[in-house]
């Protein structure tokens, strides 16, 4: 089995640059909190060139580099960046897994493993696959390195080698030992991608520093005390004696150093939910700047969905409000869309009614990815509105009239004369055979919602005269009654009506009913 590892070495920095690409090329420091004593946890290459180092305070860093831009590390952004890495992996392999979180010097890295077995036929070579992986990650705003090997451990070590600039040393040592490296490896270096053939792995691992295996502090100290600095030196020691002396923790290191194969297979991808989030440094009070932040979130969400061949469905928006509390909304997207502009329009309308009750400190946006609409327009059917235009229009109509007042009508299986129903409107996917058109013109009913109360004279149970807001005067034509009953099992919902078709002297033809439960006369519809 072949495993690829896609690694982003400096996640806090990568996450901020992904959300704010305008900061690329500037001296930038990511700090762990707010205030002058906040510690710098990550720096850009430009900041490093200016002399800034991690683990100093913000004040110190600014004194070294006055032009330094400072951003607070955002767990929401880092989570989203890590998931984006996973999406990139999913776009190229069916089986992917996130590497478990690390501690110490590798705490800032994010890595995912992919099943790379048999990819050579798709990408010409494993080298091509690794290069495609890094290119796609870069396209998603996450500069990452990739390595392909026979196990997760070796691929992770190889990726760390590239990320930390150790590959040159390792290769030189390896080439000196074997003299058999392929000529294409220089391009691999340039592309931040490396492929290790199974036979080469032991030779590759030998000269690597032992720190790359990420030993625990106590173990690292003991190994240093023993004078073990390279992986090769560790593998040459007798394993049983080593475990006896250093404890069971060394087993993991030995497995990594020997490049042992994985026993647990990588899981298949089933998750279609995508989340993006941002923690704001200052609370936002107005809709306009909030839209600006939402635009970025939506663009990133759409990019990630596109990697998986999906578009955006209903949106779950969570606004973290100043002073505690949360504003959670589910925003329906009638026509799934991958267009951030359309989605932003829908979000804005949803946020206008009602506005968030307090300034916003953090935003989380999630959606369930939907498959791209595959309905091919019919040559013999008129083209309807585009899905994106329809989605936006429906959202606007719902904002204007209320979400429960916009939709497609449908017949309800309910005997109550006042029953009606609407379902969410969606573009019909296929041409259904229409019901036959009646050969004659049909008189329609106009429903009166709610029914209009009427004063009726009915001396022998048959209405003879009416006074109401709809029709007045003597009844000159009458048909009925027809009794409709239902809901007898419930005191609140039971109903019983005697309905009549009646024509009044003023020319109106109405449907009149007597409510047997309440003892009231009502006009519930007009023939028109």
């Amino acid at each position, binding site marked *: 089995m072949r495993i690829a590892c896609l690694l982003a070495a400096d996640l806090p920095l990568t996450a901020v640059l992904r959300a704010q690409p305008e900061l690329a090329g500037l001296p930038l420091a990511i700090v762990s909190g707010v205030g002058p004593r906040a510690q710098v946890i990550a720096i850009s290459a430009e900041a490093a060139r200016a002399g800034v180092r991690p683990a100093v305070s913000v004040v110190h860093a600014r004194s070294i580099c006055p032009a330094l831009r400072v951003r607070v590390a955002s767990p929401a952004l880092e989570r989203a960046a890590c998931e984006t890495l996973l999406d990139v992996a999913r776009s190229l392999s069916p089986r992917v897994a996130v590497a478990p979180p690390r501690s110490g010097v590798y705490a800032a890295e994010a890595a995912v493993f992919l099943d790379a077995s048999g990819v050579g036929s798709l990408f010409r070579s494993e080298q091509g696959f690794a290069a495609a992986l890094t290119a796609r990650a870069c396209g998603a705003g996450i500069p990452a390195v990739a390595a392909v090997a026979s196990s997760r451990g070796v691929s992770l070590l190889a990726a760390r080698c590239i990320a930390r600039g150790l590959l040159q040393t390792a290769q030189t040592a390896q080439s000196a030992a074997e003299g058999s490296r392929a000529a294409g490896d220089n391009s691999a270096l340039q592309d931040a991608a490396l492929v290790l053939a199974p036979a080469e792995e032991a030779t590759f691992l030998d000269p690597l520093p032992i720190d790359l295996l990420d030993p625990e502090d106590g173990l690292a100290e003991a190994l240093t005390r023993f004078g073990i600095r390279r992986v090769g030196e560790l593998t040459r020691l007798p394993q049983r004696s080593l475990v006896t002396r250093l404890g069971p923790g060394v087993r993991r290191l030995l497995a990594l150093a020997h490049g042992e194969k994985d026993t647990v297979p990588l899981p298949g991808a089933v998750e279609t939910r995508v989340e993006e989030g941002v923690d704001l440094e200052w609370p936002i009070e107005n809709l306009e700047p909030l839209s600006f932040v939402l635009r970025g979130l939506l663009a990133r969400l759409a990019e990630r969905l596109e990697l998986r061949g999906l578009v955006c469905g209903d949106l779950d928006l969570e606004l973290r409000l100043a002073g505690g509390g949360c504003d959670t909304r589910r925003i329906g997207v009638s026509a799934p869309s991958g267009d951030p502009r359309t989605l932003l329009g829908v979000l804005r309308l949803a946020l206008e009614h009602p506005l968030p009750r307090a300034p916003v400190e953090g935003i989380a946006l999630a959606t369930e990815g939907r498959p791209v609409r595959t309905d091919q327009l019919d040559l013999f059917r008129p083209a309807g509105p585009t899905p994106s235009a329809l989605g936006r229009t429906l959202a606007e109509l719902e904002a204007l009239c209320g979400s429960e007042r916009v939709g497609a009508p449908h017949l309800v299986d309910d005997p109550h004369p006042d029953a009606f129903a609407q379902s969410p409107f969606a573009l019909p996917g296929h041409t259904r055979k229409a019901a036959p*058109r*009646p050969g004659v013109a049909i008189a*329609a009913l106009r429903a009166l919602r709610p029914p209009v109360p009427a004063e009726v004279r009915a001396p022998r149970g048959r209405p003879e005269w009416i006074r109401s807001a709809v*029709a007045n005067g003597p009844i000159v034509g009458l048909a009925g009654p027809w009794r409709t009953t239902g809901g007898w099992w419930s005191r609140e919902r039971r109903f019983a009506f005697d309905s009549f*078709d009646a024509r009044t002297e003023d020319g109106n033809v109405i449907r009149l009913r007597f409510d047997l439960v309440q003892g009231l006369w009502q006009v519930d519809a007009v023939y028109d």
Partner: protein
Amino acid sequence: MPPLRPAFSTSVDSSRLERLLRDLGPQIRRGAPPALPPPRCPTGIAAIDGLLGGGFPCGHLSEVVGAASSGRTALALGLLAEATRAGEIAAVVDAADAFDAASAVAAGAALERVLWVRAPHVRAALRSVERLLEARGFPLILVDLVGCEIRDACNPTAWSRLARAAAGAQAALVLLAGRRLAGTSAELALKMQPSRACFVGTPALLEELEVRAVLARTRSGAAGRAASVRLHVLGSAA
């Protein structure tokens, strides 16, 4: 033999021509190919379609007005049925909240192709119509304002704005109301009048309504023509 002279000097002619153009000003228009008659949305009721020259014109605002029981809604549902049966998507903006799904199905409409907007008031209804026209792709939009308070709800310019939007979207915008509202912005106005209701049998059953449609306004052809229509009541028609 003297040389032949032109009947008029070219320089004089051009200056005259310029003066003439200046004087006539806006009365002169650039020549264009003759405009084709707009496509029509038929109602499926032969007498009405004959009166309208094939149906309601696409790209224009039309009005159907009249008293209760005059057949306005039957006509609108006929339009809806024809449009949806042709595979088109239609919108019903219902400020009166009077749409009856059973009647629409009986008229032959495909409900899954109908977008029903139950506008809470006239202002929301007119804004909804604007949004639908902007979206394009709705070739038929019915606006039901029967029985609604119109006076303060809409600006008189709203109708001309809607008519322009309908022309841009090439949609047939049909307004149902108790009286005429759109004035000269309407391409045509059809006035419906109830004639009689026919009860037959013992016990009596309402069998049909007879109504009369009068072409109250049209920009193409003569107004004042009328047609009678018999509307069969649901149940007795089957």
